[in-house]
């Protein structure tokens, strides 16, 4: 039982990392970035590149975050910059197309089967026993990395000038630009940061499962979009709490033997939240209601 909760927290922390990215982009641009799930997927493959090139495994994380961030900038350039005042779904569709191309190219390069990722055994299988629960080092690693990244993001958004600009643009792009904030620059920051987090989540997932899988974007990754709605659109705190909550609920449904129906939890939870509390759990989602500049 406790082991299941720990497991749920670990899966949930990865959901949270992806959901934060969705919610940041939605908060600032009021648009859905469908390429986000594939940036997450590609994180594992970028890590594979580093390991296959002979570098030590712990170098993967900074490399993957930079590569994913750059892909994020490319997504912003291709799918978002041109559609500023346009119908909202244009950018969503364009980013969806980018995601499809990313999946297909990954399939073409690495094949359609999951590819094993070579991480030393002392990370993936070794562990220790704490209060009767077996804890594997990789679980600790995932928790430590996600906590560190979330803390860093919190400091970035709440304490730095760049973070203040992000909050200002999220509040009102027009007002922010009138006050001399470079909205395009802020948008790029947001895409870099959110994609770097998604890439890190993809790498951590690959560490945990031992495989880089090109299909996780459309399965694991898309759940984060529901978690974003559960936590409140544009609310980072909500994304974190929602991710952890759904992770634990999912592993508990597996525990109680409902089997694959555990996959339904997140979507059912989202529909319930939309019915009962449309603004999300925290209600801080600034874009729960139609906002017009």
């Amino acid at each position, binding site marked *: 039982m406790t082991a299941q909760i720990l497991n749920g927290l670990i899966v949930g922390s990865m959901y949270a990392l992806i959901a934060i990215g969705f919610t940041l982009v939605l908060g600032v641009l009021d648009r859905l970035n469908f390429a986000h799930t594939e940036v997450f997927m590609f994180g594992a493959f970028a890590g594979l590149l580093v390991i296959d090139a002979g570098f030590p495994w712990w170098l993967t994380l900074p490399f993957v975050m930079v590569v994913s961030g750059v892909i994020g900038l490319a997504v912003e350039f291709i799918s978002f910059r041109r559609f500023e005042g*346009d119908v909202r779904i244009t950018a969503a569709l364009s980013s969806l197309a980018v995601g*499809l191309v990313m999946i297909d190219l990954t399939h*073409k390069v690495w094949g359609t089967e999951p590819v094993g990722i070579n991480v030393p055994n002392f990370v993936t299988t070794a562990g220790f026993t704490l209060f009767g629960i077996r804890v594997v080092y990789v679980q600790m690693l995932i928790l430590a990395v996600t906590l560190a990244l979330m803390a860093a993001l919190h400091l970035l958004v709440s304490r730095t000038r760049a973070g203040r600009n992000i909050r200002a643009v999220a509040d009102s792009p027009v007002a922010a630009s009138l006050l001399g904030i470079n909205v395009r620059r802020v948008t790029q920051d947001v895409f870099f940061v959110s994609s770097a987090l998604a890439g890190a989540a993809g790498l951590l997932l690959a560490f945990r499962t031992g495989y880089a899988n090109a299909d996780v974007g459309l399965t694991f990754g898309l759940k984060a979009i529901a978690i974003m709605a559960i936590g409140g659109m544009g609310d980072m705190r909500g994304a974190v709490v929602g991710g952890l909550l759904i992770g634990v609920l999912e592993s508990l449904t597996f525990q109680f033997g409902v089997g694959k129906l555990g996959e339904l939890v997140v979507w*059912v939870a989202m*529909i319930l939240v939309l019915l009962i509390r449309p603004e999300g759990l925290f209600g801080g989602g600034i874009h*729960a209601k139609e906002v017009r500049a």
Partner: protein
Amino acid sequence: MTVDYLFFTGVNILLAWSVYIVLLTGNLSFAQGAFMAIGCYAAGIMTTRYGVPFLAAVPAAMAISAAMAVVFGYPALRIRGIYLILVTVGLTFCVRIALENFSYTGGVGGLKGMSGATLWHLGGAILAVGALLYLLSRSPLQRILDAVREDDRVAASLGINLTYVKLFAFGAGAAIAGLAGALYGHYLIFVRPDNFDILVSIFVVLYVILGGVNNLWGPLLGATVMTLLPEFIRALQEWRPTVFGLAIIVMLLLRPEGLLSFRLTSARWSGDAGGR
């Protein structure tokens, strides 16, 4: 073989129209594959287990599909269009997982034994749906849909109930997708939950965008070309997602305002009035 190609093209045309009618209210649905599955399984279970005649099962399946759409669309459409994207993505997953896990629907193994759909049935369905959509485009309802899409606040201030109009379009789309699904299942004889993957829903949306959304011919053209072309060009079949994806990206970049901009009937009329 040729009959197969024609049949799948026809099914995709129906699906493309089902996306189009939802898009008329400015909303995007990624659940058309799920509604297709609901229609397919509902009709299949009725004909194989309860001996309902095929032609009676089809409208019943359409009704079930539309009812599901109204039930699940309501929480999302009540709030904002963007939520419909989330709910429809979720619905696609839920339907697939549910079909795979309940033995009543045949589980992962799928459902078999349906038969009776021919190219003629499909042709009739396309003609009927096409005629209805054409009549719609000439009716006052089209202008209500235009108003809701172009500016929902103005539409609301004119006394249009946004939620009902959007729900109507979403339900109608689901009914058309259910029709496509019922025909598809009774032609294939054997279907599995895999047949209704989320990629099906995504591709149908892309057909519509590539074909254009100005009128009902765009989705028809998009679905026809995009289904038939890969069957005849081998390289295109292998690189399908990349080629489609790049085509969408390039077209959106070249004509950022183009692909999704609807030509308004009112714009044509006011243009005429100005000329006189």
